[in-house]
């Protein structure tokens, strides 16, 4: 019953999306002006129905209704409730339903709150949003129905990949999806602006909070995903340049560029066509990434069953959406009038540099991700990994980070470098000093060395915009920028420190033996069997002491899941202020020794701390802007009210 309700809601939402598109287009073309009034309410109801449909699927998963195929395939009655919940989106159909739900909700929310833009632009935007949504609804309903029933209810579900049974991961995909799909709003705004040719500061201000919101979720999602891969895969690494990771990184890069170019457009009315382009590109990257992951055309991909029909369907969808947007861009962008001018040494100049560098990184990642496909077309099987991505990305990232230190100090429109030279002296000296120090340490590779020299200087320089300001009266968006840039420096330091200073021990030891790794002494105390709701495990009880200090227990496990049967290694982490001890338990050899893998990773948590700071910066900026918008609206209403009173 609930499944049928969910399906009905989904059909209804799809129908409303069609109505939204048709009514919006008709009203826009002037054929039926009256229809314009229904577009906003329809968008809101459509969002509500999509949410209802998704809620129905959540209920089915929580009840473990095994007559529904998707539930039987992806859930198990013995699973803890939280993972039943996560099972809702931990599969193809459910995640696509989440996608359309977020898209519908975002469209509805735009319809509800956005009042700054001309009504025609809003109509075009909402029609654009509906246009994109319809394709995804069609995809769900025709080839990925999440509510399909089994002819006979299954006796027991098949379970969820044990690696996914992790609390951090349970909420990782929805976070990323909020980011991916949130960018659809920017896409629709860009289309709306192209159609009505209303590109200007008002457009940038209207779009910016949506981009910022999506970007915050993307940042959190990527940070969390990286941490998850770090502790769950047990390889000690935190970024593998896997196509899936790249699929989340590419929209983030585009959205970061978009945020910065939108701020130029909002403040200075320049970079008009470019901002539109980025609005299109950011969401296109979300779709491309999702497509690459879903269609299974990249060999690294993946454990969902991949149906070629689905791949073709998503590709068609992608070609229509992105192709149409780019065609519109090609036809219309030349008529978007030129923006204001500025010199190279100015805030705008620095932001343009940032944009070009981010686009460069985006290109590097995109080409590297697609290259295996290209190579396969030419007859060889390859994979592309860190040896390509790291140096090629760094060539753009390093100059970008240097300019990041300078840019916020420059004035808009026209400035000279000599004015800010004095302020930058201290960070520069710091960077040079560190570079000299690092150069003496021969064990460090070039990239980590650059990172170590640059990161502290970057942190220092990012605080400079607060100089000579009253901290209490500094506007929140400035604080946001400072915190986010500071976070960049923090994350960079963590990355560089992990590469430069990590030490690893891989040993086979008897119970009772001691192992040293970095400043730690670790003793394998005993091995105990433990059991969870749907797994059993061998747990190593180990006592770790830092530099002769008190021993702390640390318990990595080798876990056996039984539905479906699978083994995983649960790593154990011990965090101190200056780094993390990371332990993995391997197999027992024939001579009774246990394999242990231990890492001491100085300052590695700073990577994710930095990521969270970047997101926090976004939250501050978003909050500051929304608050000032609200204040402005209230003030305007007050004036209008007073005028009205006087008029009487």
């Amino acid at each position, binding site marked *: 019953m609930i499944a049928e309700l969910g399906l009905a809601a989904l059909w209804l939402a799809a129908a409303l999306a069609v109505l939204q598109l048709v009514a919006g287009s008709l009203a826009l073309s002037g054929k039926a002006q009256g229809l314009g009034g229904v577009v906003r309410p329809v968008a809101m109801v459509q969002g509500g129905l999509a949410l209802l449909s998704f809620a129905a699927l959540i209920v089915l998963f929580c009840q473990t209704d095994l007559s529904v195929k998707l539930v039987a395939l992806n859930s198990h009655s013995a699973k803890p409730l939280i993972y039943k919940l996560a099972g809702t989106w931990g599969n193809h159909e459910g995640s696509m339903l989440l996608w359309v739900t977020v898209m519908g909700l975002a469209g509805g929310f735009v319809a509800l709150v956005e009042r700054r833009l001309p009504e025609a632009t809003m109509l075009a935007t909402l029609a654009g949003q509906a246009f994109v949504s319809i394709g995804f609804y069609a995809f769900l309903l025709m080839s990925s129905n999440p509510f399909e029933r089994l002819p006979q209810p299954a006796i027991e579900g098949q379970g969820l990949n044990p690696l996914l049974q992790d609390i951090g991961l349970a909420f990782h995909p929805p976070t990323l999806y909020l980011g991916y799909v949130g960018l659809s709003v920017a896409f629709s705004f860009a289309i709306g602006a192209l159609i009505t040719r209303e590109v200007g500061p008002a457009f940038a201000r209207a779009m910016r909070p949506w981009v910022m919101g999506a970007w915050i979720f993307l940042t959190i999602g990527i940070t969390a995903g990286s941490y998850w891969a770090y502790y769950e895969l047990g390889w000690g690494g935190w970024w593998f340049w896997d196509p899936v990771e790249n699929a989340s990184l590419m929209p983030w890069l585009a959205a970061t560029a978009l945020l910065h170019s939108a701020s130029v457009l909002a403040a200075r009315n320049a970079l008009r066509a470019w901002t539109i382009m980025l609005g299109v*590109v950011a969401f296109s990257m979300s779709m491309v990434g999702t497509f690459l992951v879903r269609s299974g055309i990249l060999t690294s991909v993946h454990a969902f069953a991949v149906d070629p029909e689905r791949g073709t369907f998503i*590709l068609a969808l992608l070609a229509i959406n992105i192709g149409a947007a780019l065609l519109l861009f090609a036809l219309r962008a030349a008529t978007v009038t030129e923006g204001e001018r500025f010199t190279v040494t100015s805030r705008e100049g620095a932001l343009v540099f940032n944009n070009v560098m981010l686009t460069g990184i985006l290109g590097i990642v995109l080409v590297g991700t697609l290259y295996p496909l290209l190579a396969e077309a030419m007859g060889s099987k390859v994979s592309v990994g860190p040896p390509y991505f790291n140096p090629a990305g760094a060539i753009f990232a390093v100059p970008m980070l240097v300019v990041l230190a300078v840019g916020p100090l420059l004035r808009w429109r026209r400035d000279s470098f000599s004015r800010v030279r004095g302020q930058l002296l201290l960070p520069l000296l710091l960077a040079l000093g560190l570079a000299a120090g690092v150069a003496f340490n021969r064990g460090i590779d070039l990239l980590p060395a650059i990172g170590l020299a640059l990161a502290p200087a970057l942190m220092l320089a990012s605080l400079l915009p607060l100089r000579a300001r009253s901290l209490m009266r500094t506007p929140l968006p400035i604080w946001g920028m400072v915190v986010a840039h500071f976070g960049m420096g923090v994350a960079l330091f963590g990355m560089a420190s992990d590469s430069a200073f990590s030490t690893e021990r891989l040993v086979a030891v008897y119970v009772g033996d001691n192992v040293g790794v970095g400043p730690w002494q670790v003793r394998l105390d005993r091995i105990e069997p433990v059991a969870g709701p749907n797994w059993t495990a061998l747990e190593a009880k180990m006592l770790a002491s830092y530099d002769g200090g008190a021993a702390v227990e640390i318990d990595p496990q080798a876990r056996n899941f039984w539905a479906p049967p699978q083994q995983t290694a649960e790593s154990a982490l011990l965090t101190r202020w200056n780094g993390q001890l990371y332990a993995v338990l391997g197999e027992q050899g024939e001579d009774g020794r246990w394999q242990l893998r231990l890492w001491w990773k100085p300052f590695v948590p700073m990577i994710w701390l930095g990521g969270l700071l970047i997101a926090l910066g976004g939250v501050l900026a978003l909050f500051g802007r929304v608050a000032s918008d609200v204040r402005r609206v209230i003030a305007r209403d007050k004036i209008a009210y007073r005028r009205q009173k006087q008029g009487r």
Partner: protein
Amino acid sequence: MNEGAPRTSRWALWLPLAVFGLFVALVLYGLLRPASRDIPSTMIGKPLPAFDLPAAQPDRPGLAQANMATGKPRLLNIFASWCIPCAAEAPQLGELARLGVEIDGIAIRDHREDLAAFLARYGNPYARIGADDVSAVQLAMGSSGVPETFVIDGKGTIRYQHIGDIRADQIPMILQKLQEAGQ
């Protein structure tokens, strides 16, 4: 403002679309490329590997390589009670059994009670069921998942490997393969 002057040449505006077109072409090629997806199993045309599996159920005998060379083509179905596509496939196997096809099964990493419940619920078309608790035979057969179905000819040679569940519209195809194997 200079009326939409073509300051950036107009062709540059078409560049993104062109790049995207290339992307679509590449990906379309990747999607349609048949080669690496449907590599025929390397086991086809080879005799079955040697194996002798214990009975997975008390009411059916176990399965050995020797049982397969009966002079008549038969199906070897690799399945498990914990596998949902196997349940989806059960009606089709039942139909094939009803049409007189002899089917043997290998249950992968299964528990006896679960398997009994599975067979009671979805039907038992199998003449023999071997229990492969460590996937050894499965791997030797070149199979990497469940369900998979092999067509074995009368001499015990693998003639066809079907990957994934047999859908209703694939029954004629399986019958055809059996017939070919019988010639």
